[in-house]
């Protein structure tokens, strides 16, 4: 999921902040990038402790994506993400406004009736009670949006002019640790890695308001939580990531990182079976290939909105071929007016042998040119 994380990161405000931090550390300044703890293999993730924030690390995010269905059967996708960035600015400043930690959030609803994403974002420096993250349990909030763990479920709340939602997300089992027990490499060089776990198969219930109409919804969602100090690998231009809840109760996460010419630099994934046993997929075991493209009328970016994905299932000892098909083509997030980030983040179906075997989210970054940092 390293790629997914980094991809998302790249596509968001956070990336700019990371770039800032990286720039401070690396771009000619003699300041050491040090000061952030490294991500090392062997760390034992424990819950609910590791569901909370790890503020010493440079970046961290909680990423929730999922499918919702209302009483009339209408299908919609939703996404809510909280980013935390440690800036290493003003850590010795006693001011409550010292921008040591920034909290950013993106939320979006994919409604085929609307034809494109409804999206909004929030950004603030951590300052209780307006914005912050909690250590010890999942809880991140900014300006009235929040994601919090309690009573055995997550609660996600976001509201903007065009949409709002208030959802409960109940996991079916323990977290799924990606990579080597939650140590997820982003590159052949293990310096580029993160701590990363997923919570697939979240059972969703709650309310969604779109276009002034409030409806009860139910569905299934996916949460990613990842923290890292490592940088995106050198030469990486963008990435493609999926997180799919399989109808049989299993889950599939896969990502790849691309160079500027589109060549894959690194790939990995996790495949969880019906029984809850997860297997890590290494670079050889994941192969993405685009099957259909869509061009954005706004940005001109050309996205491969449909894919063929080949995964080598180690347990069954066979290669499986999937097709990824979007809920709708236009799920581009265009925030050029605010953060300058442009990426595609949308609801997709996973097919195997022409039959739908799961639903989830696809994220693609770096297709609208490298972002200005």
């Amino acid at each position: 999921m390293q790629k997914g994380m980094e991809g998302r990161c790249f596509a968001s405000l956070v990336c700019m902040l990371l770039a800032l931090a990286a720039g401070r550390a690396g771009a000619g300044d003699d300041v050491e990038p040090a000061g952030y703890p490294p991500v090392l293999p062997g760390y034992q993730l424990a819950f609910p402790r590791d569901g909370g924030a790890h503020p010493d690390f440079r970046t961290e995010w909680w990423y929730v994506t999922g499918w919702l269905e209302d009483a009339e059967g209408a299908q919609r996708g939703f996404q809510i993400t909280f980013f935390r960035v440690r800036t290493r600015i003003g850590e010795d400043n006693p001011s409550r406004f010292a921008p040591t930690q920034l909290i950013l959030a993106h939320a979006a609803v994919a409604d085929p009736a609307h034809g494109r994403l409804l999206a909004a974002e929030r950004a603030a420096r951590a300052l209780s009670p307006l914005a912050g993250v909690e250590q010890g349990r999942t809880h991140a909030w900014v300006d009235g949006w929040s994601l919090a763990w309690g009573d055995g479920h997550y609660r996600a709340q976001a509201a903007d002019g065009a949409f709002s939602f208030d959802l409960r997300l109940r996991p079916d089992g323990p977290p799924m640790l990606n990579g080597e027990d939650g140590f997820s490499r982003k590159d052949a060089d293990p310096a580029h890695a993160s701590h990363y776990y997923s919570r697939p198969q979240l059972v969703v219930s709650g309310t969604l308001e779109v276009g002034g109409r409030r409806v009860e919804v139910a569905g299934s969602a996916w949460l990613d939580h990842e923290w890292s100090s490592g940088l995106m690998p050198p030469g990486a231009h963008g990435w493609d990531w999926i997180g799919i809840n399989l109808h049989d109760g299993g889950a599939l996460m896969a990502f790849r990182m691309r160079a500027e010419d589109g060549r894959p630099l690194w790939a990995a994934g996790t495949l969880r079976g019906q029984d809850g046993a997860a297997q890590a997929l290494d670079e050889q075991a994941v192969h993405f290939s685009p099957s259909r493209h869509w061009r954005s009328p706004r940005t001109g970016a050309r996205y491969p909105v449909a894919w063929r994905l080949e995964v080598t299932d180690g347990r069954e000892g066979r290669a499986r071929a999937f097709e990824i098909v979007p809920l709708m083509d236009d799920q581009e997030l265009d925030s050029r007016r605010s953060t300058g980030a442009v990426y595609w983040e949308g609801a997709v179906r996973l097919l195997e042998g022409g039959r739908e075997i799961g639903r989830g989210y696809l994220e693609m970054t770096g297709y609208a040119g490298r972002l200005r940092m």
Partner: protein
Amino acid sequence: MSLPLRRLFVAGLRRRPLGASLSLLAIALGVALGLAVQLIHDAALDEFGRGLRLLAGEADLQVVGPREGFDDALYAALAVRPEVAAASPVLEVRARLPGHDDSLRVLGVDIFRLPAVQPALLPVPAEGVGQFAALEPDRIFLSAAAAAALGLDMEQPARLPVQSGVTEHVLRVSGGVPGAGSGQALAVMDLAGAQRLFGHVGRITRIELRLHAGVERETARRALGALLPPGVEVLAPESAAAQAGGVSRAYRVNLGMLAAIALLTGVFLVFSSQMLAVARRRQEFAFLRALGMTRAELRRGLLAEGAALGLLGGMAGVLLGHGLAALAFRLVGGDLGAGYFDGVRPVLRFEPWLALAHGALGVAAGLAGSWIPARDAARLVPARALRAADETALEAHPRWGACAFCVVAAVLLCALPPVGGVPVAGYAAVACILAAALFALPGVAALAVRLPAGSGAVPWRLARARLGAAPGQIVVAVAGVVASVALAVAMAIMVAAFRVSLDDWLARMLPADLYLQASPSAASGYLDDEALARVAALPGIAAQAPIRARQLRLAPGHAPVTLLARPISADGDLPLVAGRIAAARPGADPPVWISEAVADLFELDVGDTIDVPLDGRLLRFEVAGIWRDYARQHGALAVDLETYRALSGDRRVNDLAIRLAPQADAARIAEALLDLFGERTVRVSSAGEIRALSLRIFDRSFMVTYLMEAVAVLIGLAGIATSFAALASARRREFGMLRHLGFTRAEVGRLLALEGALGAMLGVALGMLAGGAVAWVLVEVINRQSFHWSMDFHVPVGGLAIFAAVLIALAAAAARLAGAHAMRTAAVRAVREDW
């Protein structure tokens, strides 16, 4: 008007170019001064208001405190309120720039909060600077006007040293604030960085609030207001702007009144010139009437003359006014040197309606000046006027009744309170005094003639006789002198009284030898205990007295007042006008001495108690005395330094008053102080230097007044010149007769000069009297009500005597010169002319 009429009347102006052009000049000057004052203040207020709106952005409400700010925990408490959609905290600091005289307005902001409330303040990083560099504490972003004022090229990376306390910090200029526009000199940096840099951690100075749609603003204002600590207010942005506009209102009105008076003098001039022209043209008008012109036509014609003159004067005044305004912007800035609008760089703009209105004022002045002459001309009986060709129709009866009425009215008006901070009644009283002087003029002239003459030379007796024979003409010629002398004398007395009182006040306020200042009190430099200890360790220093100045909001709707903490223990420590200096009594409320402005604005007197909001707490003080303060127009509270420190725990110091040991060399110690802190960070001045500087600033503020005074006198003199020119040409036959009787040309000239001098003397005497009365009203009513400070009445006798002598001499010369033309006519021809 028909063409022949136009030729007859308007073209008539061309036949008396001197009178016409002087009237035109007076109107033009009056219009120009009025327009310039208006233009300058409109532009300055406009830009100032733009600055406020820029800061307020899209805020529905703003929470403001004193300059030192308030607890920043209030921000989060308000931001989470259900009424509030978005909140943006700001720390505004006047950063002292080491080595610069000016300070820079620095806004510490949260860039994440700006887009929703104050998008125009968003910093834009320069090329190559990261998007979020604005979070770094050593980055600063300058508006175009600030960069220009500092001489920085925004294309180049630059370093900007700023001062906090007595320490210099270097900031990196990393981009601009394009939304600020071209007239606002300000800088933006991260709030947390600014708090720490300027020693304000935990404090902000304002919060801009945007309310949720559908929340009623007044309801929200009341609800949020209940959450605020004392001394912090929640306001609608407009009321903040109105408060700011009120700051300079009295000053503006005063300047506007001066311009109005210049215009009024212009009206007098038109009046005297037209009156005399009518007298001279009696025969002409009688012919016209005999030829069938109706009274109304004659009247309209003469009014058209005046209007044409006014129109020309008005147009010239509009041009001149823009020129003056442009010059003033270049030379003294948008507040005419009064210091109201710091950090604002207004630009002169052409305002069509304003220009039109002032042009119309010119026309109105021309019409007003011609009104009575036109009426008189229309009344003349053609047959009589045709016969008695040379007889002037001017009559002036003593008007003692009207005069007395005006005096009584003036006295009553002086007792009335100001309206909206503007002493309207006071101005009306001044108008009444002037009117009284003018009504008194005919009677006084008649009385003057009856004074025992004694013997004397022939020209002397002739001149006196002339004065007695034609008081009407004298009245017209001298009225302008009375008015202008009265105004000039009034201003001179008022300025002298102010200057003497100020000098006296400075001596009381600055008892020490040397003053050490880290920055003007509003800016970011200050001294702390450590700095004080370093000073105390210097040899040659006998004693040092720290002075702390802060700002407080005493009551909603009032501008903030200054809190001045300094050692106050003995009589003479403050220039008291009421009460006394007494030490704090145990168990009683600590004493506070309030300035006259506080006493006026908050209706307080000695013995009253006053609640002072200090750092979010309300502290009760007892008013022990009232003192005179020329430095802080909104008012000041003085408390003893030890009392202040015990109550507030604040040990910062703005100024340090240093007494030197006997035989210590002030220059050497000043040098040592500069070495101690660096000459870029502190200023050391002797009491004498501060006094000299203050008086220089005073004189600069009154520059406009001096200019107006000169204009008024010039107009008065011009009045004498035009009146005598007109009279002299009407008296050509008289002069011819005198020449026949054996007068030399020089003697005739002397006669004219004497007449001028006599008339001027009369005018100057009456003007002085009226001026003294007006000065009293200015000092005791208008100044007191406008600026809330008293002064000691002081008449600069010597200066006024010289002024009077020069004026009379000038009047004599003007009369002599004005008559020169008429005297040139051959005596025989002049005598024969009318037969």
